[in-house]
């Protein structure tokens, strides 16, 4: 038996994995009674449904032709993820300006198309826009500069 659709088998396995995880994590949730269906009822039903769907897809992968798997573009995926994480980790401590610079630059590194001079100008504009809109305009309680500096918290 040949795998005739890489995509189907991958999706099928993914569903099986998620379904199994859901079942396993939710195994201890109380089931309750018919009058008071418990916390675990729907998770278990869904876990079974998901696993069933996964199984069907796996079967389909052997029985019918389908699409093959395509390659992943690692660079944008990793850089974008890092950019987002960087923002999350630095915005509270290092302030909006630093976290914006960091995350935007990481994202720009994710594509070879970035032209750095153009990016630098754009960056400055974005930071100005960001601070203007969110701190001054919407008065969000986000520190603008690294918190160790005095007066970091408010812009007014």
């Amino acid at each position: 038996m040949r795998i005739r659709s890489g995509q189907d088998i991958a999706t099928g396995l993914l569903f099986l994995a998620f379904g199994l995880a859901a079942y396993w994590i939710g195994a201890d949730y109380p089931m309750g009674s018919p009058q008071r269906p418990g916390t675990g009822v729907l998770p278990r039903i869904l876990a079974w449904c998901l696993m069933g769907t996964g199984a069907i897809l796996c079967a389909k992968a052997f029985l019918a032709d389908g699409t093959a798997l395509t390659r992943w573009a690692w660079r944008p995926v990793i850089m974008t993820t890092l950019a987002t994480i960087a923002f999350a980790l630095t915005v509270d401590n290092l302030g909006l300006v630093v976290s914006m610079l960091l995350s935007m630059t990481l994202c720009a590194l994710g594509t070879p198309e970035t032209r750095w001079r153009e990016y630098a100008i754009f960056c400055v504009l974005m930071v100005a826009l960001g601070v203007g809109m969110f701190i001054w305009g919407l008065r969000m309680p986000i520190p603008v500069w690294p918190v160790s500096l005095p007066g970091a918290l408010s812009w007014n």
Partner: protein
Amino acid sequence: MQRRDFLTLAGATLAAGFSSKASAQAQGWPERTVKVILPYAPGGATDAIGRPWADKLSQAFGQQFVIENRGGASGMIGVEAASKSAPDGYTLLLTPNAPLAVLPSLRKTPYDPIKSFDPVGRVGDVINGFVIHPSVGVKTFQEMVEYAKKNPGKLTFGSSGNGTSTHLRLEMLKYKTGIDILHIPYRGGADTLNDVLPGTVHMMNEPVSLPHAKAGKLILLNVNSQVRHPDFPDIPTLTELGITGADVPIWFSIFAPAGTPKDIIAKLNAKMQEIARTDDMKAKLIAVNAVAPLQSPENMAKHLLEDIKANAELINAASIKIE
């Protein structure tokens, strides 16, 4: 002078130096914006009571008291954030009693209701009671009790969630009167009202139901407090009905992170009591079905302890669990 005496004297001088610095702090407080954390999403009952207070305090002190809504997990997230804030008098917590007086008895909370906070002052006690849909056919509290005794499990009551103050009020009612009412948890007062208005569910106990009681769509049976509601002068309190100690009060107050200078707390408490005495504030509070009692921080600490104890006993007796 002996070395030990010298050290004691030095220590005392230093301590005096620090405390005078502290009271110097209180004299200047507040010198900038004060953040008031409300552990619920905007638009709820806490907002309705909290925002007039924030406004009045801003006017009284000449500095902005800004509300920050940090909702989630039945108030736990906001309360946790407040507990971890710097105790410098520039972060306060305005909350109903539930996250501090009820929640820790039901689950493990990332804060200790006594140790993590210093009480500051009372902001408002909610006055409301059990309402019932007219389709049941009963008009007074006693009739409801009789009906429930004759038809055990037939009446239904909607609470704002498992383990919330409204749920506890139901359990207390059942406990003290021996009747059996089916509990249906909802997600907040408005959600409950949605099913009570058409009569799908019979009873509830939330301030949102009061405008409808005024309009005659629902019948108010009693009030869960020591005083009658001024808009409903004929409706008795539970104590008047002979059921004592059954109020399960819902009260809002301001707390500060533990370690906040006592002078700041005293200053704030004094101002709060002053505001609470004004007619304008009283009118604003009654409009949201609340009354603000005047209480010192020490008495408030005692009140909290009693409340925690009473709720814990009820939770035990009625076997309320988060399974």
